[in-house]
């Protein structure tokens, strides 16, 4: 009999949503269990990293890796699994582009430690203790991983073969991808390395709202208004990221009258999601007067970085070199 292909699933700095999403493929999980020999899947299976370390390089066929890289242990696991896997997949927004926890790059380690352990209103820490990677307890030395200054994507740490977008990826897409991989291992052609396994258009394509030419006099914040349920949310003034966000979710958020927040990242071939949002929104501002334009932008979009780079700051072209102002401009 031929051995089943080996599958590994791993989570680094992530929230577990990707794991829940994988479980959310429901009974199909059994098919996955049947099709693969699962060598590592922390949330559901007891398997040993030793065994993974002992394996010959390249002996894992596919590794779905979710979570970004934020401490020394995660970096090690990324390196280990890269080495052991034929195909390494950056699975979900964190591994793909950094996701919301990537906004931590606006602050950096020192700022985080100082607030969390010293300044937070509930903390009681007269001696101002902060956690140490290496601590001499009376009984001996204790180690915890080194907390990094910067959140990085998986492909900023090791080379990645494919990407699966989404925070988290939709169960339907996950199953489709697993099937594609199975087919691929069976000799079916796989997409070129570096491909993001998702649709190559944006959420508007799946959104049922009616769209017209756009002219925007003012950007509204979600708490300010109740949009109607039939027209394009952007045309109603809400900063909906759907126009720049990769399709594949079925426009779930606009369906419940909430603007898309961009969790599937940018469309195929786009290097910087925020730039796409900035340029498209700015282009349709209905004013030619610099002062008025500035007012419309500042009033309607008080937090441009958080709005345009909500999910992609680590992957974006923005570099913390610009953080002279501590990530808080005006």
């Amino acid at each position, binding site marked *: 009999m031929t051995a089943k292909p080996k599958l590994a699933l791993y989570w680094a*700095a992530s929230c577990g949503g990707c794991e829940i999403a994988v479980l959310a493929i429901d009974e199909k999980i059994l098919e996955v269990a049947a099709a693969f020999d699962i060598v590592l899947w922390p949330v*559901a*299976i*007891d398997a040993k990293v030793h065994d993974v370390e002992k394996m010959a390089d390249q002996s894992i066929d596919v590794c779905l890796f979710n979570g970004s890289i934020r401490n020394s242990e995660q970096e090690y696991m990324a390196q280990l699994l890269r080495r052991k896997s034929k195909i390494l997949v950056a699975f979900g927004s964190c591994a793909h582009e950094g996701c919301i926890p990537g906004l*931590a790059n606006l602050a950096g380690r020192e700022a985080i430690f100082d607030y969390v352990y010293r300044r937070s209103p509930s903390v009681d820490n007269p001696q101002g203790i902060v956690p*140490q990677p290496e601590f001499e307890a009376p009984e001996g030395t204790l180690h915890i991983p080194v907390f990094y200054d910067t959140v990085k994507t998986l492909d900023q740490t090791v080379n990645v073969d494919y990407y699966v977008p989404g925070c988290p990826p939709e169960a339907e897409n996950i199953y489709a991808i697993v099937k594609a991989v199975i087919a691929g291992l069976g000799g079916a052609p796989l997409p070129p390395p570096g491909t993001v396994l998702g649709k190559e258009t944006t959420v508007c394509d799946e959104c049922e709202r009616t769209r017209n030419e756009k002219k925007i006099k003012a950007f509204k914040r979600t708490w300010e208004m109740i949009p109607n349920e039939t027209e394009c949310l952007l045309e109603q003034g809400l900063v909906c990221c759907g126009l720049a966000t990769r399709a594949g979710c079925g426009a779930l958020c606009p369906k*419940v009258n909430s603007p898309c927040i961009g969790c599937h990242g940018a469309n195929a071939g786009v290097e910087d999601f925020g730039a796409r949002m900035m340029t498209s929104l700015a282009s349709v501002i209905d004013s030619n007067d610099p002062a008025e334009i500035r007012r419309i932008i500042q009033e309607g979009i008080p937090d441009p970085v958080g709005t345009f780079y909500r999910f992609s700051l680590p992957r974006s072209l923005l570099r913390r070199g610009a953080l002279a102002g501590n990530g808080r401009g005006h």
Partner: protein
Amino acid sequence: MQRISIDPITRLEGHGKIDIFLNEEGEVANAYFQIPELRGFEVFCVGRPAEDMPNLTDRICGVCPEAHHMAASKALDALWHVEVPPAGKKLRELMYSIFFATDHTTHFYALGGPDFIVGPDAPAAERNILGVIQKVGMDVAGKVLKMRHDGHYLIQMMAARRVQPNWGLPGGVSRGINEEQRKEIEKLGRDAIEFALFSLQAFRDIVLKNKAYVDLILGDIFNHHTYSMGMVDANNRTNFYDGMIRVVDPDGKEFVKYAPKDYLNVLAEHVEPWTYLKFPYLKKVGWKGFVDGKDSGVYKATPLSRLNAADGLATPKAQEAYDEFYKTLGGKPVHATLATHWARLVELLYATERWVELATDPEITSPNYRTIPTAVPDEGVGTVEAPRGTLTHHYKTDSRGILTEVNLIVGTTNNYAPIAMSCKKAAEKLIHKGKVTEGLLNMVEMGFRAYDPCFGCATHSLPGQMPMEVRLRGPNGEVLEVLTKNLA
């Protein structure tokens, strides 16, 4: 001095590491339970528009994003001084009840349950959801999967996404439901009640009918006499979405009952240099270290503690289960950590009953599900009961609603000290003369899993787990002995 490293512990939602030090006689001198990460949401959320918090904090934990979504939405109501219309409140609680039922199901069958269903002594390779499916057979497995599927499906229908919803806003929610959707929610809710009853029955048959299990539950190893915390309604009955926070002392007497916005008067967080996670405790009692009893500020916030802190449950079947629970376990309060699994099933029943109650509320389809704020935002606290403990979000903003300060005390964090104590106690009870057995490892784990700890929440991070392994080290740290589980 010898040391045992348990690194990391398996099948918890989040990463933990235990170092147990043994003295010359091989008896436990101390045990350290370490949490290796932190993500700093409190810091990078500053500067963001407050209305984004339900979406941002969703990503603190993908296991219970709905809890953060709700706590954040409630904090926004307070921040903007806006009253949520009745329909809005009910819609939120409805979605939240559906989530609670789904989450408790996941834990009982996928994470904690396996210990009982496939048994504590079964090879670890089988102590998982797949093992459960093998053991109970496809029909039951089908029930479990349906329950999870229905829950996720309804959450997506109401709140956009089955994981990471995008729905809550100051003053209500982004969209209500129509009659068609209500019908479907009601129908699946009635199935859910059946499932909850079935699960309780399964617990009776598999666990309560097995003396070994009952002894294990009631045995001293897993008992901790601490304070119990939980949210209660006006009649001191458990409520997950809204109410006052009630804390009872180890003897079950009310210690304090406070409005969530006053949490800073009651709680404080202690910092240790050997872990990234902080230890909340009762300010008035004070931090006395990792010890039990009235004089230690340590408290629990779990399904068990919620039942201890309440006088009952607000739905009929759940109230019966509640009474049976205390009758069987010898009255309130119960301190047997493993009983938390049972308490969780009682809550599952309550959640499903509440689900149907709300789904059949005439107001639930009202189009008046949101009030637009008019006041200037300044400060707000929002608290809900997360499956794993009381969850508090506290925001301050400038007049534009841009966050200037954020503080979060999340479910599992409340239980950090008790969990650490459980580990230490189990170790003390079981390790003698430096002898470690495979049984010990699972015992420790079981005590641990009862809390359904989610260090994703606690650390705002969820790093990977690896199978448990124990290394017995000599005084110079050289490895004397290695034990690993599932050697089979």
